[in-house]
């Protein structure tokens, strides 16, 4: 057995133990009873929408939040235009009303826009919402109920992709669906370490006590969630609260987004490195170390595959040259060829493990369907995900690590 095979089997083994642990944790949590706010106890809340050059989506975002079934007299919306150079401000102004206020400030980044809104809000709880995000009518009410527990400082929703069309959006669609189960499991373990910037809820007193968003941090939402964990509070997850975001449809914007996320994750984990260890329960003992190990293996395998592919292409070219590029003689697919190929395929333990992982992912998808309803397009999106995600994930991480090593600066906008 070669070195790379050993590495692959170790990563598979760790993956199996992790999956077993997460499923056991989910099942154990399902038996627990939580306390929720009743409808009559719903508190006053504020939705802050920081916006920078979002003329294409801001109207729809505002409309989606104003259609919420949350009692109209119990929430306000603050749109903070962060020095947009397009028509974002003018469009937002059209929706100004008693409960929707529009502010304009000099461009200073998302964190500064959010802090601007936090200073001016009246709500006991704050929702941060991206200007290209749409929420279901019930989502806010479903999420806010979790704050009945005084230790809960943040609640995350079920993030989904809005109308995936391009190949990359379809891959992200499945990625987000699969994330629903893990996010719920992490919440069960009190180990959520990412609160989506697109839409998350926070207890206002946390900002009052520990300050607002970290201005200058490229992943201010991530910093906030790790800070909440670092300070020993809870982050809950409401998998029924569907929230839709517009995913990057092309390779370069998606790479830039992921590079920012992953770079920010490493930076913020380093900033709060004390969260690793027994003091932080399952988060520090298992969830974070396993996440980092998975990333390490993904990077390792993608580098290995890249180098191996180069050598394979080289040797294939040499071989083709040695047979005078006689393709018809090489591609002789007959019954024996297919039989042998199937044998090699199905007796490869790695293939069997991948099939097993696919079954588990099927279970995750089923969980997502139960919580947010069936997703259309899965017949196309799932194969695309299985084909492309691992390569993309490894590639994004390799690029992020390179940026980190060479300390290139990355900006939000």
């Amino acid at each position, binding site marked *: 057995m070669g070195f790379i095979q050993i590495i692959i089997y170790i990563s598979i083994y760790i993956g*199996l133990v992790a999956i077993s642990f997460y499923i056991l944790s989910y099942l*154990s949590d399902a038996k627990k009873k939580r306390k929720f706010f009743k409808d009559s106890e719903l508190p006053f809340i504020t939705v802050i929408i920081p916006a920078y050059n979002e003329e294409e989506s801001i109207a729809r975002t505002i409309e989606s939040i104003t259609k919420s079934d949350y009692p109209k007299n119990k929430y306000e919306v603050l749109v903070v235009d962060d020095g947009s150079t397009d028509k974002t401000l003018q469009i937002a102004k059209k929706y100004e009303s008693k409960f929707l206020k529009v502010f304009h400030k000099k461009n200073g980044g998302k964190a500064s826009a959010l802090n601007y809104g936090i200073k001016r809000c009246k709500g006991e709880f704050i929702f941060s919402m991206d200007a290209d995000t749409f929420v279901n009518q019930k989502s806010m009410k479903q999420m806010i109920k979790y704050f009945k527990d005084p230790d809960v400082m943040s609640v995350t929703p079920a993030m989904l992709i809005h109308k995936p069309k391009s190949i990359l959006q379809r891959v992200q669609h499945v990625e987000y669906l699969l994330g629903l189960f893990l996010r719920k499991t992490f919440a069960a373990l009190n180990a959520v370490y990412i609160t989506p910037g697109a839409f998350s809820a926070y207890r206002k007193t946390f900002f009052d006590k520990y300050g607002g968003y970290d201005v200058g941090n490229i992943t201010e939402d991530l910093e906030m969630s790790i800070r909440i964990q670092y300070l020993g509070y809870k982050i809950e997850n409401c998998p029924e609260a569907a929230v839709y975001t517009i995913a990057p449809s092309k390779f370069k914007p998606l790479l830039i987004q992921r590079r920012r996320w992953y770079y920010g994750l490493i930076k913020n984990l380093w900033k709060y490195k004390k969260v690793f260890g027994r003091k932080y329960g399952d988060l520090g003992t298992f969830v974070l170390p396993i996440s980092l190990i998975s990333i390490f293996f993904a990077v390792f395998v993608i580098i290995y595959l890249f180098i191996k592919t180069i050598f394979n292409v080289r040797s294939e070219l040499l071989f083709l040259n040695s047979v005078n590029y006689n393709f018809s003689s090489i591609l002789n697919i007959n019954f024996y060829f297919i039989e042998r190929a199937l044998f090699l395929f199905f007796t490869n333990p790695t293939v069997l493990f991948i099939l097993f992982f696919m079954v588990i992912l099927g279970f995750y998808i089923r969980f997502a369907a139960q919580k947010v309803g069936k997703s259309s397009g899965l017949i196309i999106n799932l194969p695309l995900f299985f084909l492309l995600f691992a390569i993309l994930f490894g590639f994004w991480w390799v690029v992020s690590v390179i940026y980190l090593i060479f300390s290139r600066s990355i900006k939000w906008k």
Partner: protein
Amino acid sequence: MISRPVQSKKRYLWAFLIGSLIFLIIFGLSYSLSFLEFQRVSNLQIETSFQIFEDKLDYSIFDQGVCSKESFEKISQDLRFQGRIIDDLEKKLGKQDKRVLLRKKFYTLIELEHFEFTNLLNEQCNLGKKTILFFYSNEKKDLDRSEQTGELLNVIYKRNENIIIYSFDINLESDLIEKLKIKHQIEESPTLIINEKTKVFNPKNIQDIEKHLN
């Protein structure tokens, strides 16, 4: 601030046990499939050798015509298929696996039996089959070269209908292989003996082989 011990140490133990069990079951399943394939090659070898014996005895004892092309093609195809299965089993169970080595020895016997039968048919029926004896090695220093020659031979086989290729592992502990090596003066691999006349060492391209076939 809240205290946060791990929720359940027992759960970690269960996860470790379940994960390990799944890992072992899948490895066991993969190994079982390979073992079934091993049994299949064993049965196929017996069938092929039986068929060759039967055809040859038909001819030598009962003076029956051996020129039935259909029977010969079937045996040749089975033989080639066996070679592929053994090749795959080497990959799955290891080149040094005793069971695989035993099957390879048996395969060598059947190949030689078939080789002799081909020569007989060439003589008696003017079959016009060309033969290549391929001496390869799985030793680390020769493995790449041997595999490359094997790939070239695959292409040659597909381009030439009248060719039969017999492969022999020169490191197989077998008296027959040793005698073959002495007979054809094989000292290194990969070496080809084409039509029992021409010796070609480490061919680089198909021309190096095909020019000796005509």
